[in-house]
Each structure stands twice: as structure tokens, then as C-alpha cells.
């Protein structure tokens, strides 16, 4: 692909892709920030929500936290491999990260099925509405990340566009960090 010269310039001192991914994350922070701030304002005003939070599955949540954080490790290792110009290794490590994402979403699917069958649906009350909306928006980001990672890994295996391995890694860390906010707010705080 022929890129414009504009893409290759670095007047700000860092590669264009990295600069852009940070701006993507800035705009994402404000989306999740708005949602979480709305949740927190409600939560502070309503003590009853502590009771609702007790019905979440702390074990599933903790396991998912562990999986997601661990998957970031292989993303970092993939970046290292990409810097060493080892495309196939980077692709393999990205595959591990994708596996983590898939496990995360699968556990979530079972967790939600159980909750819904116990009668805690998105319509039960505002706590559960926030629970499904916030975690659902996050899960969409996980799924999107896995898909994009698949595309990047298949190119990286052929040694192409290795700079993208780092960029998807930055995004994946961001998805982790959002979960680190969501997990205590939705599951633990009582």
C-alpha cells in the first residue's frame, strides 16, 4: 500500500500510528468516563444498590480479571517480538492474547446466562441496567480487540505491518484498565 508522505512524518517526535492510538484512547476514556460517572452518581445516592451488587458472581468476575490481565502479558511479549522483527513469534503471542479475550467473553456469556435465569435482567432495576450496559460496552471492546488482533496477527505472521502489534497492545491495555474500574465498581463495592 502506498502511504502519503504525511503518514511518515514525525514532527511531534513519535510515530503517527502511536500518536493516533492515544487520541483514540482519549476519546474512549471520555465515553467510559461519562458512563461510570453516571453510575457512581446513582450509586452514591442509593444505598440499596449494595444489596443488588451482592447477586453478582464474584468468582466469575475475579477469574475474568485474572484472564484479562494475563492476556496483556502476551501482548507485551508480542510487542517485544515485533521489535526484534520476529513476525511469526509476535503472531503466536497475539494468538495467546486472543485466546484470553475469547475465554473472557465465554465466561461472561455463562455468567450472564446464570444471572438472567435467576431473574436479574437488564430490566430488573437501574443497577442491573448499568451492570449489563457498562459490562456489555466493555465486552464489545474486547470482541472488537480480538477481531482486530486476528487481522494484525495474520499480517504479522508474514512479517508485514509489525508496528501495528504495538498499537493493538496499547488498545488492549486500555481495555484491561477499563475492566479494572468496572470490576470493583460493579462486583465488589457493597
Amino acid at each position, binding site marked *: 500500500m502506498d502511504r*502519503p508522505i504525511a503518514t511518515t*512524518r514525525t514532527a511531534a517526535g513519535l510515530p*503517527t500510528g502511536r500518536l493516533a492510538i492515544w487520541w483514540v484512547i482519549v*476519546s474512549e476514556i471520555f465515553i467510559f468516563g461519562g458512563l461510570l460517572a*453516571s453510575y457512581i452518581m446513582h450509586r452514591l445516592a442509593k444505598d440499596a444498590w449494595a444489596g443488588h451488587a451482592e447477586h453478582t458472581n464474584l468468582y466469575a468476575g475475579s477469574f475474568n480479571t485474572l484472564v484479562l490481565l494475563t492476556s496483556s502479558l502476551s501482548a507485551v511479549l508480542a510487542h517485544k517480538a515485533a521489535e526484534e522483527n520476529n513476525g511469526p513469534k509476535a503472531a503466536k503471542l497475539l494468538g495467546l492474547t486472543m485466546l484470553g479475550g475469547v475465554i473472557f467473553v465465554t465466561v461472561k456469556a455463562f455468567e450472564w446466562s446464570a444471572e438472567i435465569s435467576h431473574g436479574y435482567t437488564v*430490566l430488573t432495576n437501574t443497577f442491573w*441496567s448499568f451492570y449489563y450496559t457498562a459490562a456489555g460496552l466493555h465486552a464489545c471492546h474486547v470482541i472488537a480487540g480480538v477481531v482486530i488482533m486476528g487481522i494484525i496477527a495474520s499480517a504479522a505472521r508474514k512479517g508485514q505491518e509489525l508496528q501495528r502489534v504495538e498499537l493493538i497492545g496499547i488498545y488492549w491495555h486500555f481495555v484491561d484498565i477499563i475492566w479494572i474500574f468496572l470490576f470493583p465498581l460493579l462486583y465488589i463495592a457493597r
Partner: protein
Amino acid sequence: MAHTITETTHAAPHHEETFWSKYVFPLDHKRIAMQYIFTGMAMAVVGGLMSYVFRMQLAFPGMDVPGFGLVSPADYNFLVTSHGTIMIFWVAMPVLIAGFGNFLIPLMVGCDDMVFPRVNRLSYQIFFLSTVVLLASFFVEGGGFGGAWTAYPPLSAKGAYSMTPLGSTLWLVAVALEFTAFLLGGINFVTTAMNSRAPGMKMFDIPIVVWMIVIASILFMASVGPLIAGAIMLFMDQQVGTAFYDPDRGGDPLLWQHLFWFFGHPEVYVVLLPAIGITADVMTVFARKKLFAYRTVLYTAFATGVLSFFVWAHHQFVAGIDPRMANIFTVTTVLISIPIAEMCFVYIATLYRGSIELATPMLWALGFIATFLVGGVTGLYLGASGADIYFHDTYFVLAHFHYTFFPIAIIGVFAGITFWYPKMFGRMLNETLGKIHFWGTIIPFNLIFIPLFVLGLGGQHRRIYNYNHFPELAGADFQNLRVFATVSLLVMLLFQLVFIWNFFVSFWRGKPAGKNPWNANTLEWTVPSPPPHGNFAELPTVYRGPYEYSTPGRDDDFWPQDAPN
């Protein structure tokens, strides 16, 4: 800051371009800019005609409006809602930010395209989709959304209340798609301006208009997020049946107002800053004078940007917020008038002792300052919570709003279009027609909205379909003012035909413009008009700031940024 990559002369790849790759799916930033500008102009026609229909209903209630027919109450609500939505999200945003941003940023910073051409194309495609969804929402069962462009719940949250179950959801989807398009575009603008500047172009050598579009894009990114979250919740309320905004079931309708205005107020500055930037570039060229206090303009823009995040609750003084909080927001609101006033003074100082040429773009730029001043000063009354309790939801607010937004979205845009038209299409606009259009717009504009100020002071509430139902507002003195405003609007709309004629006839009949018809300094004037694919035959190096006019000791009164000496 090292430019280690050696840049050879840009050889534009000459593969065959089909009609589709050239006009429908272009990657070139200039063509994407044209797509945005033409879509925005088409939507301006739609939005303008809507105002014609509902103004006719207000002046002559119950009349068969020519070309539309009888206006029902639901039609009326739908028309005012869509007028607001379209003019802000489908005219001001695409033309001022996306249109001018796409056209000007790569040319003005001296590179061949946006950093991500394909993201740029995707941005327009999503925007186009959003336009289609919005227009489609007018024709679904129940009609288009009629709950005002602010879409306050509970009215907007339930089909049973809004009576437009499909229309309101499609409206929301269209707005959300539009936000996505501008987030993608904004990331492109900010990254391009940060990373792809020509060698030698330092931070303070960037033309003000580029700075302003970049600051506006960052403001947009930082303010729209919470509203996207809010829109997701509103969507869930509408379509899934959750109760985020339903007070009966534990929700809170005020939450939407906070999320909306946390975006809504910075949004005013998102569109204002590019217009102010255009004005700066136009004024320096036609005053043949260096911009007075370049850095001050930037610092005031930063101050405005930061302050704009702390004023939102002044839209909610009567919404039941704590009066102590209202006091704080009164103070921040009055504070934000300081940087804006400062910019106006800086511009007036730029004019002082310049050799002013009253060409059409300059008239628009001066018109911008004059009308925006009225908008700003009337804003002070509304920012004071005590006065606002009386003025809230009257035509005084409406007239104030239009005295700020009309200069931005119409006058500022005309300043930009008339100024860069030679660069965009390679031909000059007709000056006489341009001046007729200017006076035919600016005089009726004032004649529309000054009567509305008077009506607002008299207590005329807005969002009323037929004032005959309210004896205290139905008197002849009030009704005459309404008729006067409506007739002025008709005159103003008719004068837009002059512009449309001038715009399209000049495509073919205009005088060829040449590279630099205005003798301007910035980099876009160093390339042929219209610029070829890849912009620069040889990528430029920058030696000085953008506003070196009338430098003592030089033969020319301008000094292009890329001239070594």
C-alpha cells in the same frame, strides 16, 4: 523533532481514476472536503426550508403554507427539532470542521494528504450514512422526532410520550453515527497537524485556522464521550425498556441534561473556534497586516476550551439544580466571556491602521465580529442565573442563540467559502453578486432576530405552535413582530439564491484565479488552483509565520511562508 526521513519529490501515482474512485470513494483530502461541504450545503437548504415552514405557521397560524400545506402540531414540533439538529450537526459541523479541516489542514501545514486517508474516507462514509438515517427518520410511521434537538427525557425516552417511537430512535442513531464520523475525522486532523507539518513549521508558525480546528477537534473528543454514553442509555430506554431516565423506576431525567450539556456547551466552542480561525486568516489578508498578538489568540482559545467544560449547568438554572451550584456556574459563564471578548479586541487591533480592502470575504469577516458581539453580550444576561429565570425558554434565548450560531455557521462559513473558493475551484466568484448576497443576508438576519429579542423580553415563550391559544401573547403588537420576522426570513432565504447562482455559475464562467489571487502568505496559495493530487510538486520548507504582511523593507507587501528570503 528531527526530520530524518528523506522526502523525495512526491510522484503522485498515476493510476487510472474512474468516476467511482474519483467522486464517490475518493481518498484525496480535498475531494473528501468537497463531499462534506456539498452535503452540508444540501442539508442547509433542508434546514433553511424547515425554518420557512414553521415561521409561516407562527406568523399566519393555521394557514396553508405554500409548498408544504397545513402544519399540524406534530409537524411543527418535528420541524423545529429537525431544524436545530440539522443546522448544528449536519451543517455547522460538517462544513466548518470536517469540510474546512479536510481541505485546509494538509495544504496549510505543507503535506500531501491526511495521515490516514482511508480513515478519512470512512469518516465521510459514516457521516453520509448518518445523513441517510436522519432523512429516513422523517418518513417512518409516526413521523420524525419532535422532542427538540436537546432530546430531554422522559419525553424522548418513551415512544408513548414522544409519539414517534421509530423516529426518535432513528434520530438518536443518526446523531450517534455522526459523532463517530467526527471522532474519526478529529483524530485524523489532530494527528496530521501534530505530526505532518512541513520542515521548519514550528508550533507558532501554524495558521490560526488550523490551530482552531485542532483545538475544536480535541474539545469535541473530550466532550462528546459522556453524551455517547448518555445516548447508549437513552437508546436502551427507548428500545429495551430500561429506566435510566425514568424517575418512576429509579432513574433520573436530570442525568441526561447534565450529559447533554456537558457536551452541548463545549460544542458551541467546537464550532465557534473554526469560524474565529477563518476570520483571523481572512482579516490579516484583507487588512494587509500582521495578526495582532498571535500567541494571545491561541492562549485565549486554550482558556476558552478549558472554561467551556465548566459552564454547562447554565442551561439548567430552572431544572431544579441547587441554587449554590447555580451561583458557581454564573461565575464561570461570565468568566468565559473574557477570552472571547479578548479575541474580538485582538481582531479589531489587527484592523487598526491596516490598508483594508472590503472584498466579499472581508465583509463576511467583519460581519462575523459585529453580529457575534451582539450574541456574546446578550449571553451575559442569560448567564446570570437571576435574569435567566425570567428569560429561560423565551424568544430572548432563541434570539441570543441565533446571534451566536448564525455568525458561526452561516457568516463564518461564507467568509471561508468566498475566501477559499478560488483555491477550491480555480476560479473567482463574482464580487458584485457576492456583495449583494452579503447585504441581502446580514440586514434581513438582524431584522429577523431583533424583533424576536423584543418578543422574548415581552415574555413570549418558545415551543408554542399557535400563539392564538394564549390570550396574553396573541395581541396585535406581538403578532405584527412575528409577521415582520417571518417576512425578513423570506427575504433572507431569497437572497441565498444569489449565492447559489454565483457559486455554480463561477464554476464555469468565473475569472481564472491563478495561484494566489489574494496575495496571501500561507502554503495553500503556493500551489496551483485547484491543487493537484498530492498538493505540492515539491514539498515545501517553512521559514516564517503565516501573517508577515507589509513587512518594512520588502518590495512585496506579503511574504510567503515558504520563501527563503
